[in-house]
């Protein structure tokens, strides 16, 4: 199959697609608004709040009814004027409805809605950066007059959580840890909302990482300014590469389905209510087989700048080895991070590094060649020679 064939295949796979005719209108109307997936809207995932702030507007088409601003700053007309002006710099001209304006440890914060398209509101927050007001940079697209649960991190240190609960039970987790099985473990406590269904909660932030989580009975709670909080532009550039590598024997190891041999498809190892920076070291998904013909997978799963290391053997049941930096990797003087995961039951040592070639030796045998940048070495392997494409050779002990 030639390169031209590939080009034609990709073209034919996409020929049926045309951009929606109203795309430009939607984009212009939306501005910086982030759009909650249409299917979520259609599926009723965003319900109307029954009380408090949600009661400040009337669901349906009650546009001519007065909007009541709630919160302790509701009477500060000068502030409301500034909030409206700031909001409209993002959302454009229109009827900005300030549903709530309140004092927080991070300064004034407001919840604002504005009809952007027929039957839909942009709903978002305005907070303070010193003397200046600012929007969250994005907003939620919700049915007109509704206020589903949503949140933002306010203040210069992003350490003040502001939540509109829509009358629902909302729970907060300040952080997480990995348990002995490699699961993300969290403790949630219920947040106490005021009479306006608003919560203002200060917490201790983690430097450069958002470790908090929020949940409500219907599921996740969107964080309006997550992208600006975690500096998406920078984080995006650090999304780790995932390298799938099938080592000798994998394809011959049984005819059973290969589904399930991938940690990232297992909900138990995810963090469904957390907000994360998708950074971390290169992810490896090494698939091999042991001499008895059983499948063996070694996988690293990145999260918030680190990676968990797992192995599966015979069955797609993960076993947790630990964090990559805890004795399961070595950074060479050339800056190459080498995975070296010694597996239990004398299954061997999984090694991998980007753009490198390897040799290994045991205590009794001199250097032996290794095929490719990833391999499953015998358990007797004691040292690994790493030859990067650029940079200095290094010898890494295999503890």
């Amino acid at each position, binding site marked *: 199959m030639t390169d031209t064939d590939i080009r034609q295949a990709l073209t*034919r796979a996409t020929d049926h697609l045309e951009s929606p005719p109203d795309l430009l209108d939607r984009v212009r109307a939306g501005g910086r608004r982030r759009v909650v997936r249409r299917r979520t809207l259609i599926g009723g995932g965003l319900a109307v709040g029954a009380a408090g702030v949600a009661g400040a507007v009337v669901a349906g088409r009650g546009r001519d009814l007065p909007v009541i601003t709630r919160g302790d700053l509701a009477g500060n007309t000068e502030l409301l004027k500034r909030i409206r002006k700031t909001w409209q710099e993002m959302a454009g001209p229109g009827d900005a409805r300030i549903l709530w304006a309140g004092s927080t440890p991070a300064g004034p914060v407001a919840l604002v809605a504005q009809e952007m398209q027929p039957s839909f509101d942009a709903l978002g927050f305005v907070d303070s950066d010193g003397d200046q007001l600012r929007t969250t940079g994005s907003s939620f697209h919700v049915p007109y007059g509704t206020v589903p649960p949503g949140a933002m991190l306010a203040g210069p240190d992003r350490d003040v959580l502001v939540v509109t609960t829509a009358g629902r039970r909302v729970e907060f987790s300040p952080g997480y840890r990995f348990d002995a099985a490699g699961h993300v473990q969290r403790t949630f406590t219920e947040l106490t909302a005021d009479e306006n269904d608003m919560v203002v909660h200060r917490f201790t932030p983690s430097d450069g990482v958002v470790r908090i989580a929020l949940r409500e009975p219907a599921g996740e709670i969107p964080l309006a300014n997550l992208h600006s909080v975690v500096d998406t532009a920078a984080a*995006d550039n650090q999304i780790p590469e995932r390298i*799938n590598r099938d080592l000798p024997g994998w394809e011959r190891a049984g005819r059973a389905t290969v589904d399930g041999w991938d940690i990232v498809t297992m909900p138990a190892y995810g963090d469904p209510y957390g907000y994360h920076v998708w950074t971390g070291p290169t992810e490896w998904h090494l698939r091999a087989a042991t001499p008895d013909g059983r499948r063996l997978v070694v996988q690293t799963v990145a999260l918030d700048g680190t990676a968990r290391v797992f192995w599966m053997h015979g069955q797609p049941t993960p076993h947790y080895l630990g964090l990559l930096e805890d004795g399961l990797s070595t950074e060479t003087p050339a800056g190459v991070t080498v995975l070296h995961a010694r597996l239990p039951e004398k299954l061997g040592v999984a090694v991998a590094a980007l753009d490198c070639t390897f040799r290994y030796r045991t205590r009794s045998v001199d250097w032996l060649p290794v095929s490719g940048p990833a391999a499953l070495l015998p358990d007797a392997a004691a040292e690994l020679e790493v030859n990067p494409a650029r940079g200095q050779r290094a010898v890494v002990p295999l503890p």
Partner: protein
Amino acid sequence: MAGFDEFVRTRSTGLLRIAFLLTGDRHTAEDLVQDVLEQMYVKWRRIEGMPEAYARRALVNRSTNRWRRRARRAETPLEDDHTLVGPVLPDHGDDVVIRTAVVGALRELPARQRAAVVLRYLEDLPVTEVAAALGCTAGTVRSNTARGLDRLRRVLDVLPEGVER
């Protein structure tokens, strides 16, 4: 903002096609393109001289995030039928077979290999521009493309007989 309007009118279908191959799902691709264009709308004055490059990079970055979030959160699985929702133009049967095979093969690739292949072979971009979109070196693009192509070739080579490639 006339330039922005023109950009959307002339390039949104191309961006949608890239997004479709990056995400494997039409609805996700449409959301992604709208998302990126909204982001561009706000920054238009700063990126007006290089909107294509900005759009490609944003698509790649955001598609990677979405793919990963989908996997981590175990949302709706990417069933084959799901990728074929709602063609807007009349479809030839062979095209559907090829589309299914291409999307399936791309789904198996690591995100950067997928992006490298799509930008090199759907958009026909030179290696240097793909490198700019991926934020990596030209050498990495070449190796990612080679690996991705190898996988794609293996899948497309075994298409059923009678399917016109």
